[in-house]
């Protein structure tokens, strides 16, 4: 550890991790540089675009605005932790089917924001989806296909 660094203990995607970090280091950098989880993206560095969204202790946060010290002991879910056992979640599959990802750079944050929305509101209306994802900027899609994906993932499964 360098002088001034702290021993940060976090549970990331269900796995306890310990990493040296400066207290005011951005969680985004801790995840990407410290833990090698580069699925989390930096788009603006000031909490406007949502590309760096992760779920920390059950809440969607912009990881570029969270200092490492605030993440001490936290449970963090990143995009790498969403698909379990190598298969896509229903939400991720819907993003693929509906073309909710184009360039893919906002996608990790967008998918986590949508997962957070669906947890709070399992079958959201279009207006609820648009409000729920308003903190995540996509420059490619015009949002229509993202809304479609979230609706498809949120709709109750059709029973045979």
């Amino acid at each position, binding site marked *: 550890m360098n002088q001034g660094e702290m021993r940060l203990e976090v549970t990331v995607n269900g796995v306890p991790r310990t990493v040296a970090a400066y207290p005011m280091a951005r969680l985004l950098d801790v995840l990407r540089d410290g833990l090698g*989880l580069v699925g989390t993206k930096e788009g603006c560095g000031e909490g*406007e*675009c949502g590309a760096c969204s992760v779920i920390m202790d059950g809440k969607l946060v912009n990881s570029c605005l969270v200092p490492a010290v605030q993440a001490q002991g936290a449970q963090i879910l990143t995009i790498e932790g969403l698909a379990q056992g190598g298969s896509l979640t229903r939400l991720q599959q819907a993003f693929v089917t509906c*073309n909710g990802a*184009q360039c893919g750079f906002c996608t990790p944050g967008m998918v986590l924001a949508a997962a957070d929305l669906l947890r709070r509101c399992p079958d959201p209306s279009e207006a609820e989806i648009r409000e729920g994802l308003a903190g995540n900027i996509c420059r490619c899609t015009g*949002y229509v296909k993202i809304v479609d994906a979230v609706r498809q993932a949120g709709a109750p499964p059709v029973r045979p």
Partner: protein
Amino acid sequence: MIEFSKGGPAMKAEGIGFSVPRKEGPEKVTGAARYVADRIQDGGIFGVTVRSRVAHGRIKGIRFGPGIPWEEFTVVTARDILAQGWDNRVASIEPDQPFLAEEFINHAEEPILLLGHADRTLLERARRAVTVDVEELPAVLDLDQALACASLVGGKGNLFKEFRIELGDPADIWARAAHVVEGEYLTGAQEQLYIETNGMQAEVAPGDPAAVTVRGSLQCPYYVHAALTALFRLPPGQVRVLQMATGGAFGGKEDYPSIIAGHAALLAWKAGRPVTLVYDREEDMAATTKRHPSRSRLRTAFDAEGALLAMSSDFVLDAGAYTTLSPVVLSRGALHALSAYRCPHVRIHARAVATHSPPNGAFRGFGAPQSLFAMERHMDIAAARMGLDPVELRRRNLLRLGDRMATGQVVTEDLDLEGLMDRALADLDYEGKRAAFARHNAGPSPVKKGVGLSLFMHGCGFTGSGEQHLASVTGVATTASGLVRVLAAATEMGQGKETVFTQIVSEALGIPNDLVELAEADTREVPNSGPTVASRSTMVVGRLVQDAALGLKRMLIQERCLEEPYDAEGFRTAVARAHARAGGLTCSTEYRQPPNLSWDEVNYRGDAYPTYAWACYGVEVSVDTVTWEVKVEDFVARQEVGRVINPVLAAGQIEGGVTQGLGWALWEKVELDQGRMINNQMTNYIVPTAMDLPRIRVYFEENNPYALGPGGAKGLGELPMDGPAPAVLNAIQDALGVLALREVPLTPERLLEAMEAEHEPG
């Protein structure tokens, strides 16, 4: 709301016309896709750029401040480049832009020197500790002032490009026309705002000659390749350029990556270590290219029935301080200045003028959104002046089969623009809404409602003889495992090229998509199939790929490896056998200009584009007359783009382009102070969120397949950028009854000013 095209009985459910899911979708939704900043370079360092704070000046000296261990840093200036006998000018249309400023600074944010270090925190401190002493010189930032100047940085009479398009002779029309309408229209700069900022990694293997490898976020591998071979004066084989996953581009990664690649490679050469050079958002917004600001002065003459008799346009683009792509942006802009109307007498005067602004460049639409904004806005103003409905005025002037466009190009498609327009208006319920809104707007509500439309086209592929000069090459090859491998330098940046090329090849060969793979965009492996720009990848490169696939099939049959009919397994076995026996087969194709196309690039006469996509967009708005905020309530995008290869991906392109167009129309304002962008953050440069827009309703018509496109496809990527801005302002005119809406972005402040100007006495 997509109208799906139905595949014919012989078509596979994976080929052309089907909404196959995005090929690289799974890696994008799991975070596994690797962008340039995600790649770790062993033993690598990071780079930053020290830039000018002033728009115009002479460098007097560079000082390295105290408190920084400068001996640990790699520092590159223009002197390093010149001392090696290398070329400090970026290879482009005109090599007038330096990689690093030598003596003079010609625009704010111009790169002056490069710093490299392993510690990013220290590197940023060091960047701030560098002081460039500059003797400031007067900067020319105003269009009129720039047009009146002698050469600022180069160009002829301070113009990087000037030309005229002339048809008929309008001279004696003006006096005898029933109506003459004049107007000036302005459009602002626009930032591409791809969510992944620009970035490059470079490695230089020393030797004589050295070997340079660069990978990163880019649209055009061979543009970067050309820039690096010129910079280091290396043979082509010594430079390798690879595209990594690219997080959006929209033109913003067309030419500027050449500069970043050069910078990264210079640092890597001097440091003897790999270099990562990734911009942060503020730097990317302030320093890289934007959509050209424009000014159009239009004059039109109509007869008493509203037939367009003559049109003249004085079209000026603010090119910024270096040529970059401005000449070709100007060409496309001017060639769209008349929109999709018939007019016997035309004078278009087009100029790209130098200023001390950062150079403007490519952005989806490439000049056409600017000129089409002017003409499509002008049509509604003209209609109001003549007491005609804007739909009626358009109806009387729409291009049809056999009509001549401004360059003399004859329309050879059996166009039904009237039907296209009527169907778009029906989709929007234009008549019903107009009637309802007239009643509503007469009432007391401070919220006024309106509907508007735009009718336009977008030329597909490079302008004029551009494709002939490019002479793109693609290939399709066998692999040991029995797949066919597409060799093209076309890049995936979100538009869906991987998926569409796969569908084109599977359709051509009658095989499943999983027997098709695409080579990485790596100049060592793929031929130069041209840049990924100009709505050309599907139509032009896709057709070359289709031909190569069919050629490979003929080779397989000639080699007696393949017999028709075959199934998937039979094909795979045949390819594997041919690969083993012949050591691999490749069929290459090169673009040939169709013999019926001709273009005079001096006089701008002839076939400006091989074909066009056509569209009518309709929009409903509500305007709050207390806050002057505009809300887009409904949006219909109906277009004729030839055969649609993948309806869901194509609709995604339209929806995304419309959204960028709406942003440009209403919110996205680049604020400059002394030539520096001062709102270079996402906090105060406002792009649309999911809450700012309605569901964009997309409709494709496939009545006019393009015979030379794969399966009949035309290009479509840029088209949706052209129509939204004029349609929205036309709808605001309808809501408020005010004509003086002539500039985008039409922010609430500008709308308030326009209303006050309209209502001022006298």
